[in-house]
């Protein structure tokens, strides 16, 4: 069906899919580089690992222009407030990666000055283990964030006005849907059987 449509010069899809595709492939990270992980984060942007392949090479140091915060390094109590302030200034939708053991859980720095995990004050989406994680792991976390974004609903939810929402099964774009075109039907979209 779709190939016919394509030959006729148009293509049908969902707005959600288009929006999520655009969002997930143009993430602008806000590198909250604190400590050693920041060095690996630089390596992740550098030629060998080249995060530009995933559309995220544009590091934005201004919170207004960023939508993905990578907390790289241990978070001290003194710094936590500054991080939260930067996070509050970022525009929605936004995501957080806790990079490394220190940002995820305090790690080896089990001490009076360090917050035992930045999830104490930030809604973390993806945790990366490692001390510090290798750049490959950071790329993997970025792909996880992209996966998460692809399964988000923003427009579809608004379309079902007046109906009580049931939780909708995640629908993936066609490329990764195992059961083909049938995956995208209004029934499944709005949760009506």
């Amino acid at each position: 069906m779709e190939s016919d449509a394509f030959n006729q010069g148009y293509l049908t899809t969902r707005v959600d899919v288009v929006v999520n595709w655009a969002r997930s492939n143009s993430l602008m990270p806000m590198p909250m580089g604190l400590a050693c992980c920041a060095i690996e984060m630089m390596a992740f942007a550098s030629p060998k690992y080249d995060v530009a392949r995933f559309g995220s090479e544009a590091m934005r140091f201004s919170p207004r222009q960023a939508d993905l915060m990578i907390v790289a390094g241990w978070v001290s109590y003194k710094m936590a407030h500054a991080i939260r302030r930067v996070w509050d200034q970022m525009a929605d939708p936004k995501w957080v990666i806790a990079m490394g053991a220190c940002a995820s859980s305090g790690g080896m720095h089990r001490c009076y000055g360090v917050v035992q995990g930045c999830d104490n004050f930030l809604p973390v989406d993806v945790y990366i283990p490692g001390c510090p994680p290798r750049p490959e792991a950071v790329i993997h976390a970025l792909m996880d964030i992209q996966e998460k974004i692809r399964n988000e609903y923003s427009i579809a939810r608004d379309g079902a006005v007046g109906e009580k929402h049931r939780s909708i099964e995640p629908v993936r774009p066609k490329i990764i849907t195992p059961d083909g075109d049938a995956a995208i039907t209004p029934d499944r979209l709005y949760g009506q059987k």
Partner: protein
Amino acid sequence: MSIIPQIDFGKTLSYWPRHNEAIYRRLESKHAWLEEVRPPDEAESVDPLDNQMVLNMGPQHPATHGVLRCAIQLDGETIEKCVLDIGYLHRGLEKLAESKTYQEFMPYTDRMDYLAPYSNNVAWCLAVEKLAAVEVPERAQWIRMIMSELARISSHLLWMGVALMDAGAVSVFLWTFQFREDLYSIFDEVAGARLTVSHSRIGGLVTDLGGTGIKLIEDFVEHFPAAVVEWEKLLNRNRIWIDRVEGIGVLTPEEAIEFGMTGANLRGSGVGHDIRRFEPYLKYDEVDFTIPTRTEGDALARYFVRMEEMKEAIKIIRQCLDRLPEGEIRSDDAKRSYPGKDEVYYSMEGLIHDFMYTDTGVCPPKGAEVYHAIESPKGELGFYLQSDGTGRPCRARINSPSFSNLQGLENMLEGGTMGDMVVMIGTVDPVLGEADK
């Protein structure tokens, strides 16, 4: 005219109100020599372009190389006063050390100056070895030297990429990271980790430098000098770069000593103080190298000193590779260093030694105290250790070079202009993880 009464710190800032108030109070009470230099009639005339402004930069700012916070008072474009606030990465390493055995603390040293972790490991191990009078085999000392010099190159490469990026040249960052990746491959091969190597052990090393490692290092030593020459061709006579850094942040030799600057910042000011010469550790008294020194004391001089240091490091590595002897890599005394893994897996005594060393570790005599310093890429990195006879230090004091350099930076910034601030921070090369301990 004070700004402090106009701000209700409790309301404007929900966090650290007393801390922020103290910073701004300090900014006002600080003596500024610029106010004295300014002629009195000029101070009275009202110039619309000449306005005072208090600006807060950091702790999250791309050009502060971490989480440095600067509160500055500007007079037009000129920085009149500057108050630096550090401690945003403070985790209490000195406190942590008191509850760890000497060997357990070593991974923490990796995370101090995370641009050159190997140097920190060596510094810690040498301090403990001095405290407990542990002898290190020859081969281990040479390998430590090779790796410390590679760490120096790695640190200077990052400094170069980031400092030039601060000045506007992004491409240098990409070039230097190519070679940093090569260095990381070497560390990965030799120590098993890219960044946090923890390769040194008290009394030696954990693993020997194998054939692949030596091959990688030889390749690097062969290719790297050509790249430095290329970069120097581009930068040393580059009008944009020279104009940007020449005459910026000048420190006279007397000032540099007075502020306690170390490393390339001290040598850029004409003081040839290098711990490798001053108190030769490892085998530095047996190799031939020069200590680059410049007399100008400005940002450009510091740039030249670091570039020369990279070349000298290559020279040292070449000599080390030539003279690398065969032999043990760890002290044979099981009370003072770990037994080898072969021994641990196949002999009961080795296993017991391993267990006891992990549990108790090396026990220096009660009341012993030593200070051992090395020349890390940033400057004099020293550990002062005091023992109470147990396997854990009674007091471990870290003398971090970045801390001393930042103190000098605070004074250096005063009198500079706002636009040069980033360059000055960049060429002083602070690492906040080390300064904040």
